[in-house]
Every structure is written in structure tokens, then in C-alpha cells.
């Protein structure tokens, strides 16, 4: 672990080792967020580049009121949203949460208790990828930040510039939608398995 203030001081001196620490610590995190939002590895790489370059431009003004990670996530998130808006002017991220009904669960098969190995890792991965890709952007962003990147509710609110209560509402909806999608797809796969049983 490193001290963030010491790292910033070293970065301001353009210390090469400090750059390596910065890159090794944060590049994958930014990449994961961007690829999750954009579903495009090449574009996600562009977001990583843009995020780090912006950080270099502002390093002397960075006061350290927020963590370096929060700042980087925020830049990456905004850059990703700008990219998405170019293709989809009416992004779901702009829509008010009050317009959405709470997703009602309909499938109650308990796939969490199924024996391990019933589905291969590849099958599970495929279903997870499909489920998250189908999630509206405004829920996907919050889910990625909270669950994959492990940001707190407060940090997520800071990155996305929405309220803490909005973060909680969106996370809750994301979880329910994903759960339902997985319940549906896992049940269908196991139905096939049982049919051959």
C-alpha cells in the first residue's frame, strides 16, 4: 500500500516509479468500468487513455479533497457517458427513477442451492454478460461502481453526481432485474439438463 499524498507529490515531480504505481493501481479499475458501460474493449481503452491524460493535465491543481480513485472514476464515467450519448441521445441515464416501477419477481426457483458444476463456468459467464448488457445504462453504471468496483454509496453518488438515495434506488432495481434475468436463464438451462437427465 502507498500513501496517496506521497504518490501525488512524486507524480508532480514526474517520478517514473510513481507513474508505474498509478497505472498498475488504477488502469484495470478504469478499464473495467468503461468496458462495462461501453461494451467495447477498444473504446474502453480510449477511455483509460483519456482519463489518465486528463489527470496528468490537472495533477498540479488536484487538491486531494477526494481520493484519486474517485476522481479517476468520475472522469472515466463522464467520458463514457459522453461517448454513449453520441450514439443514443435519449440515454436511460437521463430518465427519472420515478418513471420506473419496482421490478416484481416472478421466478422463485432457488438456483442458489443448485449443486456446483451444474452449469459450466463458461455458461455462467455467458449468462452474466447477457444479463448485465441488457440492464439500462443508469442501473448498470451504479451496479458496476458499487458491486464490481466496490465503491461506497457515497463515493458512487460523488462519481455519478446523483443523490445517495438515487444510488440506493438504482442499485436495488439493478439487483432485482439481474436476479430475475439469471433466474430465467438458469432455469431454462437446467430445464434442458433435466430433460436429458
Amino acid at each position, binding site marked *: 500500500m502507498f500513501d496517496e499524498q506521497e504518490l501525488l507529490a512524486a507524480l508532480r515531480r*514526474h517520478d*517514473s516509479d510513481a*507513474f*508505474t504505481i498509478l*497505472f498498475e493501481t488504477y*488502469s*484495470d479499475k478504469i*478499464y*473495467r468500468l468503461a*468496458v*462495462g458501460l461501453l461494451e467495447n*474493449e477498444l473504446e474502453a*481503452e480510449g477511455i*483509460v*487513455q483519456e482519463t*489518465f*491524460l486528463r489527470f*496528468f493535465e490537472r495533477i498540479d491543481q488536484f487538491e486531494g479533497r477526494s481520493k484519486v480513485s474517485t476522481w479517476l472514476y468520475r472522469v472515466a464515467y463522464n467520458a463514457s457517458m459522453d461517448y454513449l450519448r453520441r450514439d443514443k441521445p435519449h440515454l436511460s441515464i437521463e430518465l427519472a427513477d420515478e418513471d420506473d416501477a*419496482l421490478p*416484481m*419477481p416472478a421466478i*422463485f*426457483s*432457488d*438456483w*442458489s*442451492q443448485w449443486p456446483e458444476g451444474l452449469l459450466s463456468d463458461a455458461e*455462467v*459467464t455467458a449468462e*452474466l454478460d447477457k444479463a*448485465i448488457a441488457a440492464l439500462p445504462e443508469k442501473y448498470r453504471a451504479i*451496479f*458496476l461502481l458499487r*458491486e*464490481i468496483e466496490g465503491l461506497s454509496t457515497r463515493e458512487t453518488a460523488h462519481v455519478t453526481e446523483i443523490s445517495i438515495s438515487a444510488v*440506493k434506488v438504482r*442499485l*436495488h432495481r439493478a*439487483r*432485482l432485474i*439481474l*436476479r430475475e434475468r*439469471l*433466474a430465467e436463464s438458469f432455469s431454462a438451462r437446467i430445464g434442458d439438463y433435466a430433460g436429458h437427465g
Partner: protein
Amino acid sequence: MKCEELLQYLSDYIDQELDEELAAEAQEHLATCHNCRVLLDTTQQTIFLFREQGKRTIPAERRQRLFGQLQAAFLSEKDEG
């Protein structure tokens, strides 16, 4: 607590953000309601699966290229500085 209320509070329950009284009511409901118990277990499993699967990294070749490009940009600012 009814099922509709448990549904509303589910994330707060998972994140241990319910006050004591509501948490106790939720636990009592979960002890007797099969569907809500399944809802809780499968939601927690959903979160677990995504957390486990989500740790992707930049592919090695791209990573090397990106590192080189950004390092060059970082050090060139030093020379201009």
C-alpha cells in the same frame, strides 16, 4: 412484514442498513416465507457471481501499449515543465 415490504427493503437488508426493528421484522418474515427466502438467497448469489466474475483486466498486449503511450505522455510533460 408483508412480501411487498420485504421486496422494498431487500437491498437495505442485504447491506445491513435497516434499523434493528425493521431488520427483526424482515428476519421473522424470511423465516416463514419461502418465496421471499428464495428472493433473498438468489439476489445475494447474483451479487456474488457478478463480483467474482467482474474482475477483468486489460488484455496483456493492450496493457503494454497503453502503459508505453501514457508513460511517454507523462514523462514528456516533465520535459516541457
